[in-house]
């Protein structure tokens, strides 16, 4: 992994000019095999899910093998890409024609450029580490094979998402990761809470999918296509109104997948899934798909300042919301989930800043992938040793029992709160800079977020690894086996050097991405050193407050009452309560009243008509007296009528 990064860095160093809209060429040589990236994990998933019990014994190995094979393929492609000139690193691989209906045609083709390359390495690299970690974590689960099948399915779908060259194909991957997420959140199906959380995640994501579908429908209306090249190239010809609409629809989609306000509610519940899932899907990769989507659609957002503003606002709100929620949670995974929301808020905010921020969004996305996966896996390791206890108030002083976990977790901790020279410092600081350059308010929000981040992460560290021991097990906590700690160590190393490496070892990730995202320089309203000082001061203040509250004093085992803000934060800032009051309850009433209306109104009208006809028939039946003379009279009358009718018709 480290070698990858240095290679990346050296490669970046050699690369020179930049500017958006590089030419995309058909893939040749090794790039023609890009599809293998997806094929490996897909094959793995197929074998594991269709193979049945026969593959139980080797299931985890097949799963890991598929993921690692994909990673190796990614590396091969990466090095091949380094050999190309910096403005000729985008390749398309035409696989097959998907559909052609009413003039709208879609090809299944892959686009491999610098942006997707970065994601491929993140997904397969971190994904492989988490696969390996899961061998240990899921060892005692009888359905481990299936777990690996789902993980492989996820990796395949996620790779399709980032490699697609058409929004429709991207959407297939988009829904694929949603499905994998659904399956993995609800992996422990016998728990009702897990099943409910899985359903919630999927349904909320579907609300976002509405945005995706409508965005694509708008693209078809405006451009007649959803292919990246057509849409991006024609975007300038479209009216600002349409571009803004498309941008807002895409933002809705991104909000769903990345748990951004107002669709954030599912992410905290998603922690019901096994911890490796939380690390891979709900921290490092899938939830960042929204950011990828926005950055990938740069050509559209560049033309729609209003949509960009909306993205920034959403990012800022989520960044603060997530941070506040993270402060109040006692469940270690939920605290980390709040943190994830908040960090993705940073990325979204950065992406909303336009060309000035795209690269930093991706930069932070990558470093966040490292340190957040590290911390989630660390939390998993803690839980593994603590018999699946997740309440931090029952932890305490674990640094002695779990030294490796502690150290690696600490690396992640220092990275996320942004202490130089750890990874998070570089990426987050860049975002704060860009935010201040854009707007004071947004800048202050990011600064405040940094402070709160320092507070809640310190709180988490102190409650878990320091302080008094609040656990009562006959069987004391133990360190996890090497198969789990080795991935932790690798990720910890990445958390330390990732930021520095990506930014300064050789050259800049900003330059690497520039051919895709474009580049813009910003002017800070204050000297850079001042801003860095202020930021670090805020972080230190956050750490100090946390230490005063949780390090200085003993942590209580029972939950203190807390102030209104704390209570609100514990309740996810009433996001669920809002959804319940505004959508669920009225929805239930609506459904119930519709069922009533259906039975009484619509069906009632039909059945009522039938009853009325029946009643009328019962009355008309009395005409049937049985007296042949009555019938004869009727007949004669009828003959008269018929003759009369004929006369009237025939005679002039």
């Amino acid at each position, binding site marked *: 992994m480290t070698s990858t990064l240095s290679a990346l860095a050296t490669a970046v160093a050699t690369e020179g000019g930049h500017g958006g809209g590089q030419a995309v060429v058909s893939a040749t040589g090794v790039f023609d095999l890009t599809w293998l990236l997806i094929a490996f994990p897909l094959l793995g998933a197929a074998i594991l899910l269709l193979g049945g019990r026969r593959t139980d014994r080797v299931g985890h190995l097949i799963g890991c093998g598929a993921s690692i094979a994909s990673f190796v393929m990614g590396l091969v492609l990466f090095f091949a890409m380094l050999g190309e000139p910096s403005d000729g690193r985008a390749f398309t691989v035409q696989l097959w024609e998907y559909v052609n209906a009413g003039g709208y045609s879609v090809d299944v083709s892959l686009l491999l450029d610098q942006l997707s390359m970065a994601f491929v390495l993140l997904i397969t690299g971190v994904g492989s580490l988490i696969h390996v970690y899961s061998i240990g974590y899921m060892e005692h689960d009888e359905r481990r094979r299936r777990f690996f099948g789902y993980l492989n399915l996820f990796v395949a779908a996620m790779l399709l998402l980032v490699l697609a060259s058409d929004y429709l194909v991207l959407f297939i991957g988009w829904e694929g990761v949603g499905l994998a997420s659904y399956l993995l959140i609800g992996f422990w199906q016998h728990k009702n809470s897990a099943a409910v959380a899985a359903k919630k995640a999927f349904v909320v994501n579907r609300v976002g999918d509405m945005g995706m579908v409508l965005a694509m429908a708008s693209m078809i209306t405006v451009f007649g296509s959803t292919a990246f090249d057509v849409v991006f190239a024609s975007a300038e010809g479209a009216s600002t109104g349409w571009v803004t609409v498309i941008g807002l629809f895409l933002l809705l989609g991104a909000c769903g997948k990345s748990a951004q306000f107002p669709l954030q509610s599912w992410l905290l519940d998603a922690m019901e899934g096994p911890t490796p899932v939380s690390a891979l899907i709900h921290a490092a990769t899938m939830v960042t798909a929204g950011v990828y989507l926005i950055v990938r659609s740069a050509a559209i957002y560049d033309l729609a300042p209003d949509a960009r503003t909306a993205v920034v606002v959403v990012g800022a709100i989520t960044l603060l919301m997530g941070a506040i929620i993270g402060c109040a949670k006692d469940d270690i995974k939920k605290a980390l989930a709040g943190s994830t929301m908040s960090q993705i808020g940073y990325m979204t905010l950065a992406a909303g800043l336009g060309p000035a921020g795209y690269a930093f969004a991706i930069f932070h996305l990558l470093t966040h992938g490292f340190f957040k996966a590290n911390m989630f896996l660390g939390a998993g390791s803690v839980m593994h040793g603590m018999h699946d206890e997740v309440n931090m108030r029952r932890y305490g002083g674990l640094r002695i029992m779990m030294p490796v976990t502690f150290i690696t977790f600490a690396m992640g901790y220092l990275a996320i709160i942004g202490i130089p020279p750890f990874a998070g410092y570089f990426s987050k600081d860049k975002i704060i800079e860009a935010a201040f350059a854009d707007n004071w308010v947004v800048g202050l929000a990011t600064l405040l977020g940094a402070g709160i981040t320092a507070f809640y992460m310190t709180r988490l560290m102190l409650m878990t690894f320091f302080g008094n021991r609040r656990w009562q097990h006959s069987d004391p906590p133990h360190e996890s086996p090497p198969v789990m700690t080795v991935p932790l160590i690798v990720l910890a190393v990445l958390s330390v050097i990732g930021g520095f490496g990506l930014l300064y070892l050789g050259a800049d990730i900003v330059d690497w991405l520039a051919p895709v995202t474009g580049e813009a320089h910003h002017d800070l309203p204050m000297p850079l050193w001042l801003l860095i000082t202020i930021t670090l001061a805020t972080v230190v203040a956050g750490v100090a407050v946390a230490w005063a509250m949780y390090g200085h004093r003993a942590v209580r085992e029972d939950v203190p009452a807390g102030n209104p803000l704390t209570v609100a934060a514990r309740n996810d800032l009433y996001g669920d309560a809002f959804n319940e009051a505004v959508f669920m309850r009225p929805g239930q009433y609506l459904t119930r009243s519709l069922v009533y209306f259906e039975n009484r109104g619509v069906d009632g009208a039909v059945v009522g008509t039938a009853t009325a006809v029946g009643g009328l028939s019962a009355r008309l*039946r009395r005409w*049937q*007296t*049985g*007296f*042949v*003379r009555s019938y*004869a*009279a009727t007949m*004669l009358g009828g003959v008269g009528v018929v003759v009369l009718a004929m006369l009237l018709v025939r005679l002039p």
Partner: protein
Amino acid sequence: MNPTNYLVLSIILFSIGAAGVLVRRNALIAFMSVELMLNAANLSFVTFARMHGNLDGQIVAFFVMVVAAAEVVVGLAIIVTIFRTRRSASVDDASLLKL
């Protein structure tokens, strides 16, 4: 003589026959009224045959007679059967054809 007179006579006989069917309860009289109606129609046919110089009217009347004979045979057999079981020749007594 104006042949229309025959037609008018035919109408009168037909109507009387129809009235007989409608008002008489006795199955035999009702049945005979039907025969009267058939005869009235036959008279019209014969009159028209002569009026237009076309023999077909007479042929039709002939067939009507034959069919009427067949009908009488079956009809009377039914009346006799009903009389045997019900000891009555009133058509109103046989009013079971209803719900």
